[in-house]
């Protein structure tokens, strides 16, 4: 019997995946976790922080379960984005165009670009509001200078080097983890709401759910992840290390998000405080920082914006350049990829216009994430089809667990989208 099994092993055709899958030791895993933290950090942009804060303040712990549910989904989707780029050696927009044709690829990518630009506008407003908290100068006056500085930095400097430093600013949000503990929530209620789904049939609840899913499983990150793999030319041999890195980044991202939900739920929801301004959102940090909560919150929002806005602009440009077949990449000199950088510049210009036109920063931040939530399932489904194709992926095509988690993610997001459309259609938008 043993001889038969041994012969079966020898006779089995050699599989490319087996040759590249490596069991990593703990020290190798720790070393592998690094760049994914930047992606994870970029996931918690000012719009994300605002959305988690609004959800926590408006429904308390009721949507904690969605974060737990979305964590493996986010990890699997980001791993698929990285894998498809490493196997096919190209970015998502190009793959969508060459596989599904321009009729499918163009609307899919353009929806992502529109959502990105609106999110950039909302993030600019949030950064302006943070500057207002620090200086007292009205937020709207900060929008243009902030956008101009970031556009120049993105186009004319090495953003990858810079982002490693910006990550330290985003680390400020780790204080939410301490704030969550110091706010003394009812941990029994937190645990129950995290493992037992609670659903309330109201537009508020479902808008919050779509926004929360949209800011967690956010379309631009798929494009950013895939393009990052191309720029780094990592290849399939490093897939095991990449998966560890991605998992670490996404767990960190969702842990921070979870802490924001708990802190805002404990501090704001329990006191029936709704978030109308950035100062309201900053109050969730008071258990940790006391009178310095506002400063801490403002520094964190500015850091998150500095990290995320260039990522949003670049992801939009990767998408457009991939559709058009232009040279692209932040590693390229502006002269050698002019259209790519022009699109980045245009994204900043339109985002400025969006920011200046918006009347309420907090609402703009929240609804930009709802838009992401409405778009995300379409891109997740396309990504699943790409990565499950034996023709494109060969031995690296999705296995059953990845397919199950990926399709479950798409199903959850579609259900939330349908529910929010139904609720809003029958009961109207909440105030």
């Amino acid at each position, binding site marked *: 019997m043993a001889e038969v099994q041994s012969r079966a092993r020898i006779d089995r055709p*050699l599989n490319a995946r087996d040759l590249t899958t490596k069991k990593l030791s703990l020290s190798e895993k720790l070393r592998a976790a690094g760049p994914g933290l930047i992606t994870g950090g970029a996931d918690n942009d000012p719009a994300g922080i605002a959305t988690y804060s609004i959800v926590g303040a408006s429904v308390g712990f009721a949507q904690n379960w969605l974060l737990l549910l979305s964590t493996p989904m986010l990890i699997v989707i980001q791993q698929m984005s990285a894998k498809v780029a490493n196997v096919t*050696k190209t970015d998502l927009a190009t793959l969508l165009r060459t596989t599904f044709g321009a009729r499918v690829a163009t609307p899919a990518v353009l929806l992502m670009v529109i959502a990105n630009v609106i999110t950039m506008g909302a993030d600019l407003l949030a950064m302006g509001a943070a500057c207002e908290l620090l200086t007292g100068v009205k937020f709207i006056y900060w929008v243009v200078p902030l956008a101009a500085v970031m556009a120049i930095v993105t186009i004319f400097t090495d953003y990858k080097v810079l982002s490693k430093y910006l990550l330290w600013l985003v680390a400020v949000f780790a204080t939410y983890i301490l704030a969550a503990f110091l706010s003394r929530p009812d941990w029994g209620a937190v645990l129950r709401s995290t493992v037992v789904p609670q659903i309330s049939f109201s537009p508020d609840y479902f808008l919050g759910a779509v926004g929360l899913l949209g800011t967690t499983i956010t379309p631009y990150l798929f494009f950013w992840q895939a393009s990052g793999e191309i720029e780094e030319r990592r*290849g399939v*041999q*490093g897939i095991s290390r990449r998966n560890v890195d991605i998992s670490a980044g996404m767990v960190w991202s969702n842990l921070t998000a979870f802490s924001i939900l708990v802190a805002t739920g404990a501090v704001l929801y329990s006191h029936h405080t709704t978030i109308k301004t950035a100062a309201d959102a900053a109050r969730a940090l008071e258990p940790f920082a006391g009178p310095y909560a506002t400063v801490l919150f403002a520094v964190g929002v500015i850091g998150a914006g500095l990290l995320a806005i260039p990522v949003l602009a670049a992801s939009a440009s990767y998408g457009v350049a991939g559709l058009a*077949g232009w040279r692209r990449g932040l590693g390229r000199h502006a002269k*050698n990829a002019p259209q790519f950088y022009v699109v980045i510049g245009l994204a900043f210009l339109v985002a400025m216009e969006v920011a200046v036109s918006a009347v309420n920063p907090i609402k703009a931040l929240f609804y930009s994430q709802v838009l992401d939530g409405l778009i995300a399932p379409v891109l997740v489904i396309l990504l699943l089809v790409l990565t499950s194709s034996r*023709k494109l992926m060969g031995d*690296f095509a999705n296995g059953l667990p990845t397919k199950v988690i990926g399709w479950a993610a798409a199903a959850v997001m579609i259900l939330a989208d349908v529910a929010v459309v139904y609720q809003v259609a029958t009961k109207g938008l909440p105030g």
Partner: protein
Amino acid sequence: MKGERPPDVVAIDAWWNAVLAGGVDEPHPVHGDDLRVSIRHGALHLVGTLPTEADKNELLARGGDFVAHGIDRIDARHLKVAKLTEKSGILEQTLIAGFRNREVAELARQYLVDIRRLKAKQLEILDRDQASKVRRLVPEGFVSDIEQALEAGEAVLIVRVDETEAFKVREMLAEDTRSRRTVATPPVPVPGMR
């Protein structure tokens, strides 16, 4: 012809001439955007990551020829050699690029081999007359796509390389040769790999 300089040397010399004339934004013919150059206060600053030590030495040696002939010195403190985490000889990948006709495909082949110094395991141009070879060269899933392209009068360049080279080759084919479309088939084990 005897005494004729290889195309890559000609292209590199032209690049150096452009750099010394102030055209520091020009991509290097072999290393492209992996190498960045600037001239400040008479010093030539070389920044980037090159594939091998030999590439770095070659670049520095050629740059050295221009010291006191256009530049005062070379600063290569930020010029690095790539740390290879991927091993070659494990997987290989076939890339397929479609071109308008055989002549254009031939130009692309010359660019890859003569200018970019590509060492491919296999490099073939197929047109309608060689359609019978398609099945031997590419995985089953891509056969009908290529046969359709050949039937429409296109020529395809089929390049088989080590998987560690495939990113670079795909980039060259898609961006530098302006192929109509470029596809990378999935990586497969190198024959005889155990």
